[in-house]
């Protein structure tokens, strides 16, 4: 009997061929972001006084702990670099392997392509083994490049390697997690959703544990990487839980694989309705049905996150008042720190929420590629109404999402901080960013209409806007580069005075882009 992993090397080559652009982008993008942030931190905290100020700030900052965990070794430059970059880096590595593993396991099975491969001389575990192998090597590469980048910037080499190894460890944990989840669900989208939820939960557990200084912080993989303390007294023992979790996940995966049928999950599909509800049958009804799950997921996640940010407002005011360094870091400059915190939080959350709008628009392209658009458009439904129906749902959902961010943040702050006076200005901070979100949405529609094969480039527009919003100041983007992001043009209320002109211009740009894109869809071939 041949080995259960026979054929793995062929599948590895297939994965490398299919991801020959995607994977290097993830690896280099992640490490470049870490290196860029590290360089900025080095420039920002170049004197002992500034470092002491930073340490005092973050050790007292709940918001910082929520996002970045327990501040270890922040009295030295290397420690500050680690504290500032590790959260982003670990989340990116985790997302990289989750996408990679699900894409090459459950998504392949769901599409039926895996069946074609399984019919060749391929072992039962080969598909998972190949995806896990590539994800593991990618994690190691990120770790190595991270170590080389940090060491190259002048950080201690031993610590840099420890830091890199911690990134690899996170990669291995989430590789195993995604592999196991991919066995449980029959749908790749659900597998991504569950893995993403676990990732978010693990991140929150670490954050909440760090804020409350409780044992929770040591229950999350994101906490384990910090306990390793690469730039302090390295506690190698914390590698053990990372490796153990990875091994346990892979063992569970192997067990589940042999206990299920190919193509099936462990969750059995429920029967659906034999008749469509009255709403299904209009373009809006169909679009609502197709975007509903995506939207509810996003709205829920955004409300929870916005409420968390909002609940920290009271603390921020008292903690940051005398720490201009931290205020600098959150890109505020002058003005009330509370307002600065909410302006920054709103910017970050609204920029993230734009991902929903992009993926909802790109779903139309997926409908075309799958041949489902052809089926719908063979009915009496005009092409324009198909497009407008779907875009209307996306547009309304986007407006609701952005409003929810503002309202949830303002409400949480009102309840926790007993400060309802700022409700309008906090909620407004999010809503004012809506035109910028719509510009990104418009860019996606424009691509859909005129460059359908390259519609995925809309993600690049989104990624740039997000990085500019999140790290633009830290990375010292030149003005012309920042100007490419629509978010840099709308006022950052409540810090900046609200002016309606940029918002109106952005709205106009967005709707022109949507209109021109719609014309493109009307004029081009479908499919």
């Amino acid at each position, binding site marked *: 009997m041949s080995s259960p992993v026979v054929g793995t090397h062929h599948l590895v080559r297939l994965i490398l061929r299919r991801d020959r652009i995607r994977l290097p982008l993830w690896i280099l993008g992640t490490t470049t972001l870490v290196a860029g942030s590290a360089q900025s931190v080095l420039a920002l905290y170049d004197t002992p006084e500034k470092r002491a100020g930073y340490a005092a700030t973050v050790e007292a900052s709940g918001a910082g702990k929520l996002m970045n965990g327990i501040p270890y070794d922040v009295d030295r430059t290397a420690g500050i670099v680690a504290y500032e970059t590790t959260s982003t880096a670990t989340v990116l590595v985790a997302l990289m392997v989750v996408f990679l593993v699900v894409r090459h396991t459950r998504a392949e099975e*769901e599409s039926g392509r895996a069946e074609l491969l399984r019919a060749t001389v391929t072992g039962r575990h080969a598909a998972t083994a190949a995806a896990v192998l590539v994800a593991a090597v990618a994690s190691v590469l990120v770790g190595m490049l991270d170590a080389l980048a940090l060491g190259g910037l002048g950080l201690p080499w031993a610590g840099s390697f420890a830091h890199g190894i911690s990134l690899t460890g996170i990669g291995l944990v989430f590789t195993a997690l995604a592999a196991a989840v991919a066995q449980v669900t*029959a*749908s790749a989208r659900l597998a991504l959703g569950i893995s993403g939820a676990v990732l978010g939960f693990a991140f929150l557990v670490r954050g909440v544990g760090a804020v409350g200084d409780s044992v929770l912080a040591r229950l999350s993989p994101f906490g384990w990487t910090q306990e390793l303390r690469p730039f302090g007294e390295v506690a190698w023992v914390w590698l053990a839980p990372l490796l153990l979790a990875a091994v346990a996940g892979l063992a569970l995966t192997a067990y589940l694989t042999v206990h299920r049928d190919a193509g099936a999950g462990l969750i059995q*599909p*429920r*029967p*659906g*309705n*034999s*008749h*469509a509800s009255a709403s*299904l*049958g*209009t*373009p809006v009804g*169909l679009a609502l*049905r*197709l975007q509903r*799950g995506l939207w509810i997921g996003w709205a829920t996640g955004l409300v929870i996150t916005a409420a968390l940010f909002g609940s920290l407002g009271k603390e921020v005011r008292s903690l940051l008042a005398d720490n201009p360094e931290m205020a600098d870091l959150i890109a505020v400059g002058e003005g009330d720190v509370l307002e600065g915190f909410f302006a920054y939080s709103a910017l970050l959350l609204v920029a993230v929420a734009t991902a929903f709008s992009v993926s909802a628009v790109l779903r139309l392209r997926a409908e075309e590629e*799958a*041949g*489902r658009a*052809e*089926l*719908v*458009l*063979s*009915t*009496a*439904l*005009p*092409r324009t*109404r198909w497009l407008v129906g779907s875009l209307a749902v996306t547009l309304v959902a986007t407006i609701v999402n952005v409003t929810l961010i503002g309202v949830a943040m303002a409400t949480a702050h009102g309840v926790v901080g007993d400060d309802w006076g700022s409700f309008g200005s906090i909620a407004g901070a999010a809503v004012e960013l809506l035109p910028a979100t719509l510009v990104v949405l418009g860019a996606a529609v424009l691509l859909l209409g005129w460059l359908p094969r390259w519609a995925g480039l809309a993600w690049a527009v989104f990624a740039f806007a997000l990085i500019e919003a999140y790290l633009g100041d830290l990375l010292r983007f030149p003005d012309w580069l920042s100007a490419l992001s629509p978010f840099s043009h709308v006022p950052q209320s409540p810090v900046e005075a609200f002016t309606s002109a940029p918002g109106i211009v952005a709205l106009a740009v967005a709707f022109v882009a949507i209109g021109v894109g719609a014309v493109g869809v009307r*004029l081009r*071939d*479908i*499919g």
Partner: protein
Amino acid sequence: MSAIELHQVVKTFGHVRALDGLELTVEPGEVQGFLGPNGAGKSTTMRVLLGLLRPDSGQATLFGGDPWHDAADLHRRLAYVPGDVALWPNLSGGEVIDLLGRMRGGLDLTRRAELLERFELDPTKKARTYSKGNRQKVALVAALASDADLFLLDEPTSGLDPLMEAEFQRCIHEIKDRGATVLLSSHILAEVEALCDRVSIIRAGATVQSGTLSDLRQRTRTNITAETSRPATAVGAVEGIHGLEHHDDANHHRVSFDVDSAHLDAALSALGAAGILSLTAHPPTLEELFLREYGDDVGGAAEGGAPTTAHARGTAGVPR
């Protein structure tokens, strides 16, 4: 007015000429078979008719309208079944049928129920759990439950079992009886023979043959083997003879050849002059007909002008 008229339609994708001067006419009330090897341009033609693709040149009309500009209005009168049905994985089959029916302008619920029963389709299953044949049934029920005037069927029975195939044929007879028009792309020749009044055969994006099945048979060769009392040398002089072979010995004179239907009479006269002792004649089977049309070199087809006239055929005989 024809239900479908395509004249000199060209559609290119980059360097590939998917349709290269295609001619197609479908008259109201007829069931026309649409045949051709894989990649000949059958699905591209369907998509042009649906207004999903815009032809580079040529004229396309559907019920006298422009399939590109009047797509949605024309679609009220037609129903489409693709050869590879893609469905929304989280919608049930029943929901998809209702969705498509409503978007077409309403569907007959009694007929929907009847068709579900006839095709033995469970409408409560989610589309992701359907097999290929069942996905095909969803699209078929959605199309057949409509009262469309025109049915565009692109290999509609791929993946159906023989019982369902028979049910499908009954359904086509029913819609034909109520006067609907059908354009049926298929590789199942028995299905084409059973259902179609006329057949169009395309290759490399151009029409090579069009006519009734008996027309097509007319235009092909009959295989003849005869024993004669004297050597049938005169046969060699007859026009339209292919693959002529003589077996002559002392007492027996045997001759076999293929002859174009148009010259059958002349060939038999020539044989008669040699004194026929025995004669076997095979009309071409449908299979042979299509093999010849799919496999022949059709370099001369373009010169043949309108596709309903016999086109110049290559000299190579059909391998037997």
